């Protein structure tokens, strides 16, 4: 591995442009001479024909794409952002519904705390963190990373404002409701984008397993975020039937998506089913889909005390499942990028016995 810093010749800066140009010509000259020497050795057996390129496609099986450079912060950010975004929606709807003030307060704080952690995670993943604010130099609709950065700014500030204003209102009163509602509204709207755009972010890339699944990724992430938001609220001690209903619906949705992935036969989706990334996907899928679904259904029939315990178990399973699912998708992307087969149409590469897949199949 490369360990040294760029080894610029200390005298480099002292050299004139002419000297540097002369060096390029020297490189050319050296290369020419090397060739001239060995050219004398060449014999041309004409009967053997002209050389052709390698018989097998691909280049020593080396990847065509670069592996996504993102580290552990990104799947955690996907999880935190998803849960926070969904929590903001819960807060807004509950506030409007005026059902349970404690629940609204907690949902607001989940959104605010998530909105504070998220930028920290993203900045920590940047290669050049001190330039984080360069994200806000431009707004580019065609770049999901740009849309996401602006969404996060809107979300973090409005969620923090909503939590702050509601606390002030509760402690001292007198603050007009309209400010808090406005902040809640901005947080809820940007929250829906925050919980879904991450699917577009990884889907609109060159990585096959991601872009071939772009139609399910944002929905998948939205449901996963909703599931963890409802679960965190349940673990905070809220036992509203609404949260159980949300949990049930989300688990059902996750089960369907898990089944869709499991039945997916396309070669691009192989990293979701084989190897470490495949097992991560399966474990994440089980923990966020069928397992909590069953627990919640049983809870529906159990006696009060037991029911609460089962719901809490389901909540823990959903949260863990959501986190593992995000890690699984990033890990699958890394595996996918390392495999050159799909970019090169899979023709005759080692380990591939299928006939040439057409573009549609891939």
């Amino acid at each position, binding site marked *: 591995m490369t360990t040294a810093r760029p080894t610029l*010749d200390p005298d480099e800066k002292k050299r004139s442009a002419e000297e540097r140009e002369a060096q390029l010509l020297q490189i050319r000259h050296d290369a020419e001479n090397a060739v001239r020497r060995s050219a004398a050795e060449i014999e041309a057996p004409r009967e053997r024909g002209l*050389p052709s390129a390698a018989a097998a496609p691909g280049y020593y099986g080396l990847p*065509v794409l*670069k592996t996504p450079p993102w580290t552990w912060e990104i799947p955690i950010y996907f999880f935190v952002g998803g849960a926070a975004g969904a929590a903001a929606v819960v807060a807004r709807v509950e506030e409007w519904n005026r059902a349970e003030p404690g629940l609204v307060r907690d949902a607001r704080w989940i959104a605010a705390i998530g909105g504070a952690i998220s930028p920290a995670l993203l900045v920590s993943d940047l290669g050049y963190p001190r330039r984080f604010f360069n994200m806000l130099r431009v707004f580019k609709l065609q770049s999901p*990373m740009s849309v996401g950065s602006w969404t996060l700014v809107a979300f973090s500030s409005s969620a923090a404002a909503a939590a702050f204003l509601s606390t002030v209102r509760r402690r001292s009163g007198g603050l007009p409701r309209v400010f808090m509602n406005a902040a809640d509204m901005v947080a809820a709207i940007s929250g829906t984008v925050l919980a879904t755009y991450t699917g577009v972010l990884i889907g609109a890339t*060159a990585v096959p397993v991601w872009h071939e699944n772009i139609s399910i990724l944002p929905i998948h992430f939205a449901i996963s975020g909703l599931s963890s938001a409802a679960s965190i609220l349940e673990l905070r001690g809220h036992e509203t039937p609404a949260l159980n209903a949300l949990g049930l619906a989300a688990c059902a949705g996750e089960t369907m998506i898990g089944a869709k992935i499991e039945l997916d036969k396309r070669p691009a989706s192989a990293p979701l089913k084989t190897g470490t990334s495949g097992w991560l996907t399966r474990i994440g899928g089980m923990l966020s889909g069928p397992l909590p679904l069953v627990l919640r259904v049983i809870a529906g029939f159990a006696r009060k005390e037991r029911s609460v315990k089962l719901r809490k178990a389901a909540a823990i399973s959903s949260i863990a499942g959501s986190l593992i699912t995000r890690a699984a998708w990033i890990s699958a992307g890394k595996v996918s990028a390392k495999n050159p087969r799909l970019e090169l149409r899979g023709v005759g590469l080692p380990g591939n016995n299928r006939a040439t897949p057409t573009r549609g199949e891939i």
Partner: protein
Amino acid sequence: MNTTTAFLTDSTLCIGCKACEVACKEWNGISHDGFEWSGLSYDNTLGLGHSTWRHVKFIENGIVPGLGGNAPETAAWAFSSDVCKHCGDAGCLEACPTGAIVRTEFGGVFIQPDVCNGCGYCVVACPFGVVERNPEDGRAFKCTFCYDRQLAGLKPACATACPTESIKFGQLDELRLEAQERLEELHGRGMHDVAIYDPESVAGIHALFITRGDPERYNLPPQPEVPTVYLKKGWTSAAVGAGLLVVGVFAAFLGTQK
């Protein structure tokens, strides 16, 4: 006036001397790639990356000694010098959230090192695997198309150092014609597998290649895609997801009210 410049890399003229790699590193002051033997022919850099902006591929033909004009006891090679394609429709440029990646007045794709914040999104957006984040520095790097040299009216360093004119530099439209002429010439001389690599799926590239046989043999994707083609599907799905989120929460809270 059309000032779009381009490379035409003719693999049939490449002798694998790596003068382009050396000249590129020399001019741009790029660090070494580590001193390790890959075991894969004479190629120890293996691909383009943050510290390799020109990369000579050594494509081995299997052991057919003397094939096509080699010394009787040596196997034949195909060489090709790879470089950033400077796509007509560039995935990295579209994806860059900071505006660090720009198209220059010469039509090339350039990462401004004083703007890049190392988010890494261009790395996953490039269908050729050209851009890479330097793990030590943190920013993304790739071929600059010798923007500094072009501004000064000079040829890029690699084209200057290439001893066989395998790397040609000039106006894009002229080089497209030249590539076509060269193709016909080589076909006429019996090299029937010669092809031009200039994929339309990325609106053409500004670094054309003349190859032997299918592009796959050079690890060049036959149909590279600009990832923005997936945006419509993605945002539609995001809208559905956001809708489900809102409707779900409303339904849950209204539906369970006593």
